[in-house]
């Protein structure tokens, strides 16, 4: 079957030998594949003779492809020239081989042969020498001489070698987490360095001190125990402490002032810079410019009973609150206002009884003497915020039995103890001495009633005491003081003679509310009274040298601190009257209503600025700026209109008042 198949496929063109897998089942599967030769169809059939025919081919060195007639342009001769036929460029090397055999007759071989022989001889010699040496050694040890391959059994010896695996090299690494890195950057300034050094310096000093203390304690026997403040205690409520710290309080105080200043910018500008331009055109007339009104909710229902500027801080003043109404007495209050904070008092003190009078100590500006309606006198240190008074009179130490109408600080006595005078409607003038732990009362004077009917001495002795209302001490004669009484009489007294009056001035018919010595002229004082009048007196004359009817009860009168002839008075119809006697001896320069439906009770000039504060019976204090006409100093001016330097203003002011006195002396009965 296979041959028939072979025949059938023979015709097909197949140029390769095919491996044919036997198809029949009988055929062994593992039979070798049968090789068959497949001839291409167009294969040339040659006869044996043809196949045996020899054909010769000759190889020549000539390359038939090389052109032999190349002509090139010769630039030198400017013509085409034929290249000479040559093979150099076209030689093709078919086969080369370098050999390593030498011809045995050549010189090179001879040289090499000689070298080889020489080397062999040397080796043989060296071996011989070694053998000899070994023999010698063998003889000396008595052993048999070892042959070249000694010890080893030449027949029963097999040399084995094994190659072990070379373990491949491995690299092994572990990557760990990188250590944390923090970037830190800061700019350093000079002052930070400075701060650090200063802090370090302070710490060093502290440390040195601590050491010193510890050493001292050690040397004295005991061990110094330095207790550091526990940080836990310091940390608790630290946040709250920040809010309520003293620093915060201070910052808040400043901020409140700022806020006020911003809000009342116009008023502050008026206070500082505004001048009433119309004053230039009206001679003998002036005006008051209302500035701030100081009041608090707590004082609305109280009356202003006292006003006092601080002698040291010209922007600070104290206001006393109480009541003049006998039927409506209540607690009192003292508020210290500053112009820097117009909306709220700097200090507030409340008292059990209504405050009637106040006085700041001229040398110790924080000391404030207070007189109350119930007769007590107290001394406050205004720096102790909201605290009790540092001194207070009691029944034990002595006390006025009626309202204290005025207190007045005195110069320090011989024992350097601070003391002040007080006057009360119980008819006594007392001196209060601030000793170490108590306020000592020293009665100075009993204000005896003076009987107008002089011819009955017995009645005088029986009569009671006059209620003192006000007093003032002479600026030059320290012992001299004048007292105004409820009856209207004015008494000149001396600290030296407590038994009697030096002089009694009659003129007022009702209670004298205020009495003030002129700050420039030592003889002149002014009084105001409920009988609607203000009177000016010379203490050497027992009649008033001037009198002004203001048409209403005059609550207070006050000399200006800058001119001897200017004073201001306030009346119960809410008017402020400002007089300048040098300008007008009969009429006020200014009469201005400053409060509606309220009585004015007190007035006080500022020492530095041209302003007055007036208190009313509704718990408010108004500040008023004086227009230029109300503050003429009448200083001599040179031809340029500038006040000459170095003039004695005090003497000028005194002379001004002297002139007035001379005029009134000429007509004593004018009042």
């Amino acid at each position, binding site marked *: 079957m296979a041959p028939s198949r072979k025949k059938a496929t023979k015709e097909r063109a197949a140029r390769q030998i095919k491996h044919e897998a036997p198809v029949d089942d009988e055929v062994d599967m593992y039979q070798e594949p049968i090789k068959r030769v497949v001839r291409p169809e167009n294969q040339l059939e040659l006869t044996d003779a043809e196949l045996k025919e020899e054909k010769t081919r000759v190889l020549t060195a000539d390359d038939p492809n090389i052109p032999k007639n190349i002509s090139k342009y010769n630039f030198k001769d400017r013509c085409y020239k034929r290249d000479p036929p040559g093979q150099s460029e076209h030689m093709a090397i078919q086969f080369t081989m370098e050999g390593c055999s030498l011809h045995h007759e050549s010189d090179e071989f001879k040289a090499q042969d000689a070298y080889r022989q020489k080397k062999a001889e040397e080796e043989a010699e060296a071996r011989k020498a070694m053998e000899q040496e070994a023999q010698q050694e063998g003889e000396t040890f008595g052993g048999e001489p070892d042959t070249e391959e000694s010890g080893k059994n030449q027949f029963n010896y097999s040399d084995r070698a094994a190659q072990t695996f070379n373990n491949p090299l491995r690299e092994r690494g572990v990557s760990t987490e990188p250590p944390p890195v923090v970037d830190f950057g800061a700019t350093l*300034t*000079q*002052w*930070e360095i*400075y*701060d650090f050094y200063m802090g370090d310096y302070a710490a060093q000093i502290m440390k040195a001190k601590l050491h010193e203390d510890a050493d001292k304690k050690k040397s004295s026997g005991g061990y110094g125990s330095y207790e550091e403040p526990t940080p836990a205690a310091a940390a608790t409520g630290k*946040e709250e402490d*920040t*809010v*309520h*710290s*003293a*620093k*915060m*309080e201070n*910052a*808040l*105080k*400043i*901020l*409140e002032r*700022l*806020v*006020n200043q*911003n*809000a*009342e*910018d*116009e008023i502050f500008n008026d206070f500082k810079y505004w001048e009433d331009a119309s004053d230039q055109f009206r001679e003998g007339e002036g005006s008051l410019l209302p500035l701030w009104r100081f009041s608090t909710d707590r004082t609305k229902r109280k009356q202003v009973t006292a006003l006092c500027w601080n002698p040291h801080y010209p922007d600070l003043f104290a206001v006393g609150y109480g009541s003049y109404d006998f039927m409506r007495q209540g607690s009192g209050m003292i508020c210290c206002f500053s112009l820097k904070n117009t*909306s*709220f008092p700097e200090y507030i003190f409340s008292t059990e009884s209504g405050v009637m009078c106040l006085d700041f100590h001229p040398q110790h500006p924080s000391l404030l003497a207070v007189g109350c309606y119930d007769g007590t006198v107290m001394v406050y240190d205004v720096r102790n*915020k*909201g605290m009790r008074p540092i001194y207070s009179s009691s029944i034990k130490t002595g006390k006025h039995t009626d309202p204290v109408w005025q207190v007045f600080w005195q110069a320090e006595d011989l024992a350097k103890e601070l003391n002040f005078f007080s006057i009360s409607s119980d008819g006594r003038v007392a001196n209060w001495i601030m000793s170490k732990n108590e306020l000592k009362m020293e009665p100075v004077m009993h204000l005896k009633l003076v009987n107008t009917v002089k011819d009955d001495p017995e009645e005088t002795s029986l009569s009671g005491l006059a209620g003192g209302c006000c007093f003032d001490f002479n600026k030059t004669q320290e012992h001299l003081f004048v007292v105004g009484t409820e009856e209207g009489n004015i008494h000149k007294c001396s600290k030296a003679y407590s038994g009697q009056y030096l002089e009694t001035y009659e003129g007022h018919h009702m209670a004298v509310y205020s009495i003030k010595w002129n700050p420039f002229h030592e003889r002149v004082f002014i009084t105001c009274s409920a009988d609607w009048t203000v009177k000016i007196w010379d203490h050497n004359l027992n009649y008033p040298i001037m009198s002004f009817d203001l048409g209403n009860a005059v609550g207070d009168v006050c000399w200006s601190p800058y001119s001897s002839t200017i004073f201001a008075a306030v009346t119960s119809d809410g008017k402020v009257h400002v007089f300048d006697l040098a300008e007008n001896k009969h009429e006020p320069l200014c009469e201005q209503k400053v409060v509606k439906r309220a009585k004015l009770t007190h007035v006080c000039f500022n020492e530095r600025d041209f302003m007055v504060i007036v208190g009313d019976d509704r718990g408010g204090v108004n500040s008023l700026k004086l227009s230029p006409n109300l503050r003429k100093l009448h200083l001599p001016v040179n031809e340029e209109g500038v006040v000459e330097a170095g003039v004695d203003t005090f003497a000028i002011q005194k002379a001004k008042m002297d002139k007035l006195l001379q005029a009134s002396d000429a007509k004593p009965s004018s009042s």
Partner: protein
Amino acid sequence: MSSITDVESTLSRISSHKGVKGVLICNHSGSAIRSSLPSDITEQYSALISQLAAKASSVTRTLDAEDDLTFLRIRSKKHEIMVAPDKEFLLIVVQDPEMGGE
């Protein structure tokens, strides 16, 4: 303590003052402790003003190492921002100065 009531009453007085927009207290790190302003504005003010105050203080200290900033007022068209800087705190008051005048 009188100082606590004093501080509280002063704070309430300032914040109720006419024209005052807000009072702000920051601690030393610049975060607000107290504020009368809405929280977003508070945050803005405290963050910005504390930076400005620190810079201003740095300027004064650089000019003179013994000198220090005590107060900072910023007057703008609308407001006046008043800053009282301290080591521990920063007190900021924002006021409309025009409003209080009337």
